[in-house]
């Protein structure tokens, strides 16, 4: 299971967000460059069509492959009260022929995208990961070098934390409290719910950028 929230931020404020996260998390930021291939099964393969994501981490020196299956999210009145989406998720590292394997199983490529950005992984009540990335699409099949952003002026911020069915309430609380710290720059919400930008983002970003080196505005 994982808890996840998403938010958007304008590209001009991404650097400020990086500084804020650096201060909040206390760890170094890691570069992120992931080629995501989303494979869908054909109807004959199972009773329900399923979707699998193959993530290829392109950060040098070695490419690592991950298989990820995202399931349904928690529903109900309790889920509505939580500001974070809790959903089943299974993830595993895989060898590099995982793509061929899934093709052989009968899955087909549905879409692919490239995430380029940075990420922070730290522990604050729960093992939280924050990724800030621009989502790029590839004009030609698998051409990751020529990817263009889907929305050039906007990037995606995702905050995720793994959870189990026993401890998800604590994880949710830890994530919510962390997300509040990001309030000056962006609002985070469940995937699928739009938030818009935060009006104080510009001022907050300016203050973060100006204090970085002690320079005055």
């Amino acid at each position, binding site marked *: 299971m994982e808890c996840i929230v*998403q938010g*958007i931020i*304008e590209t001009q404020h991404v650097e400020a967000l990086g500084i804020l996260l650096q201060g909040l998390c206390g760890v170094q930021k890691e570069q992120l460059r992931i*080629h995501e291939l*989303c494979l*869908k099964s*054909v109807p*004959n393969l199972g009773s329900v069509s399923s979707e699998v994501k193959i993530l*290829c981490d*392109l950060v040098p020196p070695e*490419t690592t492959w991950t298989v990820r299956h995202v399931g349904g999210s928690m529903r109900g009145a309790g889920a509505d009260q939580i500001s974070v989406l809790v959903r089943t998720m299974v993830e595993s590292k895989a060898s*590099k*022929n995982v*793509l*061929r394997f899934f*093709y*052989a199983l*009968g899955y*087909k*490529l*549905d*879409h*692919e*995208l490239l995430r380029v950005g940075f990420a922070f992984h730290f522990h604050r009540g729960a093992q939280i990961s924050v990724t800030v990335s621009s*989502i790029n*699409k*590839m*004009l*030609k*099949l*698998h*051409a*990751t*070098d020529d990817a263009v952003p*889907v*929305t050039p*002026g*906007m990037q*995606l911020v995702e905050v995720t934390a793994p959870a189990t069915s026993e401890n998800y309430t604590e994880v949710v609380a830890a994530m919510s409290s962390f997300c509040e710290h990001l309030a000056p720059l962006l609002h985070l919400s469940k*995937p*699928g719910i*739009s*938030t*818009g*930008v935060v*009006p*104080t983002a*510009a*001022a907050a970003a300016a*203050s973060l950028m*100006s*204090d970085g080196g*002690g320079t*005055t*505005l």
Partner: protein
Amino acid sequence: MMSTPGPGPEVYANAQQVLFSSLTRSTMMKGLTQSQPQLLQLQQEPVPSQQPAVEALNPAVQQQLNLEHVKIRATSLFKAISRILEDFDGYAGTNTTPRWQDILGQYSMVNLELFNIIDEIRKVSKAFVVHPKNVNAENSMILPVMLSSKLLPEMETDDNLKKDQLLHGLQNLPIALQIEKMKARIYTIAAACESAEKVLSETRKAYGFGARQGPTITPTLDKVQAAKIQEQEKLLRAAVNYGEGLVSRDQRQMALALPMHLADVLNVGPEMQNLVDTSGVYQKITPTQINTISAQSALLQASGVQLLARSGTNMNTPSPQQQSPQQQQQHQQQLLQPQQRPKMMSLSQHQQLLTQQQFRQSAMPGPGQLHGQPQKQQFSQAPGNHKQFQGRQLASGIGGQLGQGNLMSRNLGQTSGAANNALFNAAQTIQNTQMVPNVSATMPSQSLLPSRLQYGLSGSNPQSTHSSQLLNEKMLNMGGANQTGMLPLQQQGGSQGAFGNMQQPNAQTFQLNMVALQNNPQNHQGYGMAVLMSLCVVCSWFM
């Protein structure tokens, strides 16, 4: 003059009372007037009556403290003071002017006595009392607390708690180390506070907050901008969560060169790369898409041409007019229709190449049936040829071919994947089935066999990267050489009534073929098993 007796025996607990009594006696001797009744009262106090009510001090301590001495001093002091008081009373009573010199003399006496008694008291109380030396304004308030030997109970517990908190983890170390660590801690905290202060002050300066401004007005976005942002946001979220809008159909072209991480994953051989890549594409079917098939036909023809490059070389020569549009249509549909799976296509394409070589001329029922036909052709072909085996005296020939085919498969089978093995099995099937009609129908074409076998043998020691190439070329050559053999097979297919049904795409015949195949396992068991295996693998993919 006797004084009136006192009101009653009173108990006095201190030496001062004793002094009083002795003083009264002494004052009486000096001719006191009766205006000092209080002094006279004390006359009758029994000194011994005090003693049972008071605990006597330890005689040793008594000796040490020299209480008697103190008593004497106190007495004399008291006497002097009282003398002065008496004189004043006398003066007041008689209205005479006091003689100041006498009074001053008496004051000086009192002073002297005071200093003496202070000295004595100091000696006495040294054992019991702490006498601060340096008392001034600032420490007079806290001196009592400081001098007290024990804190108040609640203060003490608080103190203990704080001490534990601070020294947590440090209590085992020697004191010097503890002190060092505490100092270091204090230093870092002080440094952090200082830097925070600095930052805050700079921020204030930068924003002019020092002037006590109210909250700044947050800038609101104008509607146009907000709408744009919302639209962008929708795009982004849809792209990430649902994969919409990422690649348009028109743009779904194959990359000329795969990126590094995919190159070695998807690349089995240089010519297979193209096939596998495009076959891996899954295109969502939307109503608009079906209408734009014509628009895509150019694209697909390009890829179709690429895909069919192998088959094109063979198939175009027998009947180019028939085959080219049909090929393109077939591949368009193969690419468009969602039911087909990529790997299936990639392998089945190879099989299709060969089946098409054989059946292309015979029945091209139309685009609608092309979908099922290639696979069915293949299935129908195998049992058909299988049945053809039965009546043939090809045991030796096929056995020989089998041996070489196995050799080939061993070498080629070393390359990755069951896919390749199945492919080679299928290739064996087709190879051998092709050989069958050639042998049966036209004897002259038997010369093709050795050439193929030789080719197979010569090619049986390839590098693994070339093995697939080899296989393809082998199949191609077989296909090329088999063109003459196609006709006989088809004739045979037509001659045998069962086969006529197989060419119609029909689920029943499909199953019939499967049943027929499974019912004839005993013929050429080694070869039959290979056929079965390949069929089962292909069936499982299709299912």
